[in-house]
Each structure stands twice: as C-alpha cells, then as structure tokens.
C-alpha cells in the first residue's frame, strides 16, 4: 500500500469530512434555525437589513439553491461582512486566527512535553507516591473549569506578582506589520525586539493556562501505554540483549508508547482551541477566542459561523497530519499486511 496511498486515502476522507461538516452547519443555520433571516441579521436588525440578508443568503430560494450558494461562498472563503465589526469576515479571521494558532501551538507543545513526561514518570513509579501525585494533579486540572485556571493564574501570578495580567503585548507598543500574521514572528522579522519580548511575556500565562487544562489527556494515555509496553516481550528482549535498562526504556519502550499519544494530538488541538475561547476572554488576548466571544455578545452570526467552520477545518487537517505522522512512525500502519 505504501505511505503515499495511505496519505491519499486519508486526505480523501478528510475532504469528505470537511464537506460534511460544512453541510452540517448549513442544516443548522438554514433549516434548523427557527427564523434564519433573524438569526443571520441579529435580533435588532431593521426590516431593510433583513431584506438584504434574505437576498444575500438566498433565503427565499429552495433549500438546494441555498446550499449551492452556501457551499460556493464557504469554499471561496467569502463569509460576508461582519455586522458588528463592519469588516469582511475573512479579513477578521485572517487577523485573529494566526494569533490564536501561535498561542495554541505553544500551549500544545507544552502540553505534550508535560503530558509525556508526567505519564512516563507515573508509569515508571506505578502505584507509588509519584504515580498518585501525578494522577491527583491531572484529576484536579481535568475537573477544574478553564476559566477558573485562568483566574487563579491571573490572581496569583499577575496581580500578586510581575507577569502582565492580559493583552497580547504592551498596548503602548505599535503592532508589527502583518507578514505571517503570527505577531511574535512578525516582530522578529521586523527586528522589533521590544515588541517581541513584550509579546512573549504576555504569552506566558495564557499558554500555561491552556497547557494545564489539557495535559491530562496526554498524561493519561501515555501512562497506560507505557505500562502496557513495559510489560511486553520486546522490551524484555532488548534487556536480554544487554543494551542496558536505560536504552531499553528510553529507546524501545518510550518510542512504542508514544504511538497512542500521536492519535490524541488532534484531540488536544481541539481541546486547546475550545479552551482558548475562555482563556483569551479572561486574558484579553485578541485572537479567535476574542472574536468568537465578541460575535456571541453582539449577535454577529456570520463571524461566529465562519470562525466555527475555519476552526473545524483546522481540526480535521491536524487530524490528517497526525494520521500521517502515525503512519511514518509505525510501519505496521504504513506497510500494512501481516498480523497486527
């Protein structure tokens, strides 16, 4: 079968899934919605605005015509103009999404590092105090609402200490020219060290907050897979070959137990991006979460729907990337055949 065939098959499935999710949002916004025109226009819209909305979304046409235009608009990234921000929605997303991606990828990296480390540590200390401590810690962070984590960090580390309580950077500084959209990277490219430092410092608390609420996913799966792998005969074979316990554990066992972790990377991404809706709100970080909460508060429906679609597409794409990564690491998936 080979890696290429596998990738093509997976990519095809992902495209189907994306089309499916877009259709699902259509069903929700055009068919399930009690009064689509009012939903799209917002509750305080005037009659002329509503007329405009009906025309814009072809709400007076049969459903399949509506679907046709909806799909065309979505896949040409034409999400209309935001009634609240007064800008094209695609421009808004272009501005806000990279900021959230920057935040989420940093948070995810931290999540994976903490998760893999604590999971492997707990497995190596199974049923001892270290194991109980790790499990207690992730039970706590798993059960605590994201907003409470953010508030606790803000209260203890910002108000009582030196870290900035919110925003993306010192508001007195001008934003760097958008090149990649990732503001820290843009600051670097511009050589704007003051802004770069300021934005990094402002990232610390939201990144920790996001990592805290999501690392449990990784810890849990890492711990159980490491426990399973440590009992396998191939780890024993490695030990019997005389490679030494360290190589047996950190090369043979760790690599094998990381495989299940790859499968939850996309889940972690979905989890951090949902978490960042709340976290960004609390830290006044103006990214996608800010955009979503603003559009919720101000009945800016086109922005909300477009944000949802874009985020869902990214989740599907990350899932695809994780699947491919999984195949690269695990020859049983990549090459198929044989017993598994």
């Amino acid at each position, binding site marked *: 079968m080979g890696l290429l065939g596998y990738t093509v098959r997976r990519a095809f499935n992902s495209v189907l899934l994306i089309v499916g999710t877009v259709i699902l949002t259509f069903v929700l916004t055009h068919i399930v919605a009690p009064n689509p025109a009012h939903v799209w226009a917002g509750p305080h819209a005037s009659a002329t605005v509503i007329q405009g909305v009906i025309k814009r979304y072809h709400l007076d046409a049969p459903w399949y015509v509506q679907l046709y235009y909806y799909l065309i608009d979505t896949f040409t990234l034409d999400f209309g103009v935001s009634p609240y921000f007064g800008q094209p929605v695609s421009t808004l997303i272009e501005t806000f999404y990279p900021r959230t991606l920057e935040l989420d990828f940093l948070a995810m990296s931290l999540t994976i590092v903490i998760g893999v480390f604590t999971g492997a540590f707990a497995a190596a200390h199974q049923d001892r105090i270290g194991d109980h401590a790790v499990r207690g810690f992730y039970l706590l962070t798993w059960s605590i609402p994201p907003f409470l984590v953010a508030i606790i960090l803000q209260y203890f580390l910002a108000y009582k200490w030196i870290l900035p309580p919110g925003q993306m950077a010192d508001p007195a500084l001008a934003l760097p020219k958008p090149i990649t959209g990732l503001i820290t990277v843009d600051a670097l490219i511009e050589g704007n060290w003051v802004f770069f430092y300021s934005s990094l410092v402002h990232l610390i608390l939201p990144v920790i907050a996001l990592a805290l609420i999501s690392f449990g996913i990784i810890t849990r799966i890492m711990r159980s897979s490491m426990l399973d792998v440590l009992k396998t005969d191939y780890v024993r*074979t490695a030990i019997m*070959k005389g490679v030494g316990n360290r190589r047996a554990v950190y090369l043979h066992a760790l690599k094998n137990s990381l495989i299940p972790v790859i499968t939850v990377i996309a889940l972690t991404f979905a989890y951090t991006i949902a978490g960042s809706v709340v976290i960004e709100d609390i830290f006044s970080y103006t990214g996608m979460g800010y955009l979503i909460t603003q559009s919720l508060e101000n009945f800016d429906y086109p922005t909300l729907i477009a944000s949802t679609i874009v985020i869902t597409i990214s989740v599907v794409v990350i899932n695809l990337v994780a699947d491919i990564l999984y195949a690269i690491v695990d020859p049983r998936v990549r090459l198929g055949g044989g017993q598994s």
Partner: protein
Amino acid sequence: MLTNQKLTIEPTLRVNNLSVEYRSKGGTVPALRNLSLSISEGEILGVVGESGSGKTTLALGVTNLLRKKETKLSGEIEFLGTDMIRAKLSEINRLRGTEIFMIFQDPFLSLNPLMRVKDQIVEAIKVRNRRSSRNYTRSEAEKEAVEYLEDVRIGDASEVARRYPHQLSGGQNQRIMLAMALAEKPKLLIADEPTTALDVTTQAQVLGLLKEIVDRTKMSVMFITHDLAVAGSICDRIAVLYGGMLQEIGPTSSVLGHPKHPYTVGLIQSIPSKTKNQGELEAIQGYFTLEGIDRICAFAPRCPYARPACRAGVPSLIRVDESEVRCINYSQMYDKVDIDPSEKGAS
C-alpha cells in the same frame, strides 16, 4: 545433592532451593517452592509443566526479569559464578546478551515492531563487540547480521533483514530470535515455549535448528515447554514441574521411558501419538488447586494413586534409578508400594 552430573565440572547454571512468591492484594501466592536444578555446558534441560506450574517464573527468575515489587525471592541462582538474585543490576546487565539470552513464546511480540530486523540484530552485535572492545563499522555489523540470518536458514536473508517484524511469519520471527542468539553466543539460552505459537511443521524446523545451533556452539539451553513430546525430541534431561515444585528430573530416556511420578505418567498418556494405537486418550482429571499446597503432595488432589499418606506431608525428592522423584510411593521401601505407576505408563 543435585543430579547425576559429574561433580568435577562446574555447571553453567545452578539453582538451589529457589522459592518465588507473587505478592497480591490478599497476601502472597507461591509460584516456585524449594526448586533445585542445574544445567551443565552444552546441555539442553527441558522444563515441563502445565500453565501455572511455575516454569515461566523460573525463566524470569534466572534472567532476573521478575518485577522486584511484585515478587519475593529466596534461595540461590548461580550463573557462571554470579549470584543472579543479589548481584547489582549493572553486573547482571553485563551478563545479559553475551552470557545469557532468552527467547519468548510469541514471536510476534518478542521483536520491537518499530525497528527493522537488521537493526535489532545489529543492536545485539554491537553489545557483544563493545564488550570484547572490537571495532566494527556499521556496514560490517549489518553484513554479519545477514550472515546470521542465513545461518538460521532464512531464505532471501538480505531482503528479510530490511523488513519489519509484522511483515514476516511467526516461524521467521522465531528464527530471527535464534539469529540474535547466534550473534550473542551466550553460555545459556533460555527458551520459554519457543515453538508453542508455531504450526507443527514450522515447530519441527525450528526445533531442528535449535538443536543444530546447540551442537555447534556448545551453549546450554533451558527449554521450557508444556509439551512432553517436544521436550523428548530435543532435550538431554527433563525436569517436570507441578504446583511450583520439581516432581521428577532425570535423563530424557529415563523420564519418558520409565516415568516414576504419577503426574509424569499422566502427561505421557495424554500425548496423542503415543497412545493412538491403544484406544482412548487419557487426560489428567481435575484442576490444579492451591489448597493445602504447603502441607500435602501438590498432585494428590488429582492423583489416581493418592492415598491418605500423600496428604500427611510434602514428599521429599529422592533418587530412583537414574531419576529423582518426589512421590510417597518411592520414599518408602519398594515393597510397600501398592501400585507401580511406571508399569502402566511404559506399556
């Protein structure tokens, strides 16, 4: 008093009075009790018993693979003069690979699924070379790995070397384990049911190969199996385990030809090929039970010849002919034996 080895030759492995208990929530469960045996150079010792008899525990104990937290060990395991129970981990790790190696039951689980076959053999070669401070380039080591694969008669060895374990058959994987053993050239090879997961034809080939390797390299083997027929086809001596205790040990011809212990007799009678001309296949009645195991003969609850005396205490291991056996029927004078089970079994 061990077995009928010449005392001038120091055995490769000497197990003395080994007891192993598994810790569990309700207390400890005995897995091995007062087990003593030895293996000398170039000898294949078969360890036979049903599941739960303690044979895998013995293998893991000898290789120091038992989890320290879950087990309680007492007694002695002396391998080439090293105390395998009390030695430092670094010392045991120095023996692993070059002096002692182990092959496991399921060939699909005993090789790392993420590594190519050659890399796994090269890893073994590297360990050996590092110890003998020889210097090998990677390509030399790979060439050697392919040679070992040819030695275990894997067709298209250089192609197989590039594959991953899941792409090969069970027989091929087990041959690769043997190739690894060849690369390490250990003094003692522990084989834990190495052919159980294979089909009969492949089983015979792998057994023949193992025998050939032993003849060539003079390594000692502890061959663990539940199948007395397999043990008979390859082993020099056979030890029969039941309930964590050694019940009978002796040269293969003696154990198979003149079995003394009723359990051994039962095992022989349940080998299909040996009894097919005599009508029915006889299975040993009942199930293994832990009840009262430290007070009575472990086999008494299932033994067709059990007498009240069997429940009076644990019989001691005594010498009968070429074998040693743990049965009350032999521990007293021969004329007091009511029934001689060996007559029935050898017929």
